[in-house]
């Protein structure tokens, strides 16, 4: 049996935005680490998108050599405090753990988080910076892809500037994922401070493509390479009737108002209006975050999802927490129309029942409409969490950057090299909406490719 991790009580947490999972203490971490069999096959490593040497870092936790454990993790992952909190471990590392076959997998995510937090809390310097190379590299976007690319390049000795469109660095980590899952002051800000300590400069309020173009970064500002990590921030809507009614938000708008603009605090100016009955459309992490945020703002919240709980792409822990907090799951249900009152405000939705038939090429069950099953439910807020596509500004304004039919930037898989000389890209901007660990990994990989490119570029 896993060492249980302490959590904030349900009654308490639904009234505040404090972090729900409290993490392991040293004793608990060591105890949990001792469950690892250090097995030869190490399927956990194979299932980790960046191949962290998991048995090894756990071995060091067993021996209470936490700094050594950190050294191992940081070789592969520059953001363990964050990934430990948000990775879908059940389908990655922990999904490979042999203990999971009969009982519970080792809590690898919680152990990773423990080490990440240990490093942040004790100001441990895990990086050995190489001598300065006196070459400038620009990183566009400050989400996990940009942050990891910047830190890797800074360690390699480059002068790195991050350009961020918003007023705060962090990408989805600050505007999307809520405080109760990923604390901003304690974790995200600290990660960013560490980046500053490495000498990385962060320029906020710069929209590359508008404030400066990619070409200007090279020609006028003297950068020798550029990494694009602009994410997939453009929200999709369903295209159904009534979707522009007042009270219909994209999850991005709802979460940005709540997280980035802190609209739930009275002393902040940004407004956020939420009704008594809220419907969140979707079954991913974004939907769970929106639903749980709405719960904390005092609403009765329904998740509307067209497949069943088994197909939901959200992390297991989020689904579990959402249920604990009273979110109602209306599965096999799909909205067909949003109804508005005479002032243009949402008053309800026409919903249609679905059933699952067969599987698609990716192996997912296909939802099919049940004819004649339409019914009306009253709601006063609707939040669309049905996905996002890459931000268009750079590709709109730079013809040299090729994109595919999903608006994703086209790159060479191993290096992140784009169709424009000296420009690399990674993260959601390349893959479409994916995960923090994949974005982090892509940023790091591109940093090495940029190093290779600039080392062979003799000017």
């Amino acid at each position, binding site marked *: 049996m896993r060492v249980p991790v302490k959590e904030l009580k349900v009654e308490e947490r639904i009234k505040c935005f404090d972090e729900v999972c409290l993490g392991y203490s040293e004793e608990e971490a060591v105890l949990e680490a001792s469950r690892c069999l250090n097995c030869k096959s190490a399927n956990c490593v194979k299932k980790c998108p960046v191949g962290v040497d998991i048995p090894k870092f756990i071995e060091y936790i067993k021996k209470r050599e936490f700094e050594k454990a950190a050294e191992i993790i940081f070789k592969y992952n520059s953001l363990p405090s964050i990934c430990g909190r948000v990775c879908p471990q059940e389908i990655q590392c922990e999904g490979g753990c042999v203990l999971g076959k009969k009982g519970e997998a080792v809590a690898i995510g919680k152990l990773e988080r423990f080490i990440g937090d240990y490093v942040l809390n004790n100001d441990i310097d895990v990086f050995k910076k190489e001598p300065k190379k006196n070459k400038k590299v620009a990183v566009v976007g400050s989400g996990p892809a940009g942050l990891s690319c910047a830190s890797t390049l800074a360690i390699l000795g480059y002068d790195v500037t991050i350009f961020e*469109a*918003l*007023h705060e660095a962090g990408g989805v980590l600050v*505007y999307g994922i809520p405080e109760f899952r990923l604390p901003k002051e304690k974790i995200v800000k600290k990660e960013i401070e560490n980046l500053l300590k490495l000498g990385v400069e962060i320029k*906020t*309020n*710069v*929209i590359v493509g*508008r*404030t*400066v173009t990619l070409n200007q970064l090279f020609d006028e500002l003297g950068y020798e390479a550029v990494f694009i990590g602009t994410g997939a*921030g*453009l*929200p999709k*809507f369903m*295209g159904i009737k009534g*979707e*522009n009614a*007042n*009270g219909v*938000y*994209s999850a*991005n*708008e709802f979460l*940005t*108002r709540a997280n980035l*603009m*802190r609209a739930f605090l*009275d*002393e*902040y*100016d*940004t*407004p*956020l*209006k939420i009704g008594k009955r809220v419907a969140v459309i979707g079954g991913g992490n974004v939907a769970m975050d929106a639903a749980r945020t709405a719960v904390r703002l005092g609403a009765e919240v329904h998740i509307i999802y067209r497949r069943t709980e088994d197909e939901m792409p959200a992390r297991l822990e989020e689904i579990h927490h959402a249920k604990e907090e009273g979110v109602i799951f209306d599965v096999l249900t799909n909205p067909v129309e949003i109804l508005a009152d005479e*002032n*243009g405000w949402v008053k309800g939705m026409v919903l249609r029942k679905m059933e699952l038939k067969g599987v698609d090429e990716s192996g997912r069950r296909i939802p099919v409409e049940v004819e004649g099953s339409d019914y009306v439910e009253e709601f006063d807020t609707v939040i669309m969490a049905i996905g996002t596509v890459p*931000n*268009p*500004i750079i590709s*709109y304004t730079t013809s040299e950057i090729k994109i595919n039919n999903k608006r994703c930037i086209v790159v060479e898989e191993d290096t992140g090299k784009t169709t424009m000389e000296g420009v690399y890209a990674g993260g959601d901007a390349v893959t479409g909406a994916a995960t923090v660990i994949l974005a982090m990994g892509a940023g790091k990989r591109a940093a090495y490719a940029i190093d290779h490119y600039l080392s062979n570029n003799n000017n």
Partner: protein
Amino acid sequence: MYKIIEKNFLAENIVMFKIKAPMVAKSAKPGQFVIVRIDEKGERIPLTICDYDRSLGTVSIVVQVVGASTCKMAKLNQGDYILDFAGPLGNASEFVNLNEEELKNKKYLFVAGGVGAAPIYPQVKYLRQLGVYCDVIIGARSKELVILKEDIEKLGCRVYISTDDGSLGIRGRVTDLVKKLVEEGNTYDEVVAIGPVVMMKFVSMLTKELNIKTTVSLNSIMVDGTGMCGACRVTVGGQTKFTCTDGPEFDGHLVDYDEVIKRQNMFRDEEVRRMHHTSECSCF
């Protein structure tokens, strides 16, 4: 941090600020806007770029006090700082993509309602510098609220005024002037109308009848201004568009104005609460 270099009241509740923002000044084009956040607790508000000086690195904005944030802004003074000033955002006006040859024989009619005179100023300035013919109509409730009249006249175009109370120019509405100018035999290739949504709606209805291409600049509610939230969505020609990345200028004959008006009022109750909260506005 962005320094306020100059502050002037253009009318009782309309203030012009000149802000030091070299990167924005360098890239700004007519038709674009900035997003401003005054302080740590402030909201992100969109404001049109009204003028820019690339050599001095300054950008001018004109703010009409309508609620809590604009009120807070109007209280700032020369020498104070604004925390965030991001831009230029949105697409430049369509004519910026035309060359001199294409523009040479075109005739433009600009129609400004109230503070709308500020966003049309850089457009008229740009066109006049290329010698393009422009007439300008400014409408306001009364004489005191007519702004930038002399500045626009100095660009070398005829300026016609309408006021609701007749205290300046004709007594009536901007649409009366549009009708009059066309009836007098003036012809225009394009009308650019910027002001309150209702005004843009009525100008567009009229120009549709008159069969003149019309461009409007929409001032939807925004959050990020970079295409990330969809708060600014509008229906144009039956399709959903994002004002910040697809606009802010759209074909005036295709915009669903009633939806724009409804969506602008989305946070009215909240705003009123906030206004009481932030103490009385006493900037003028």
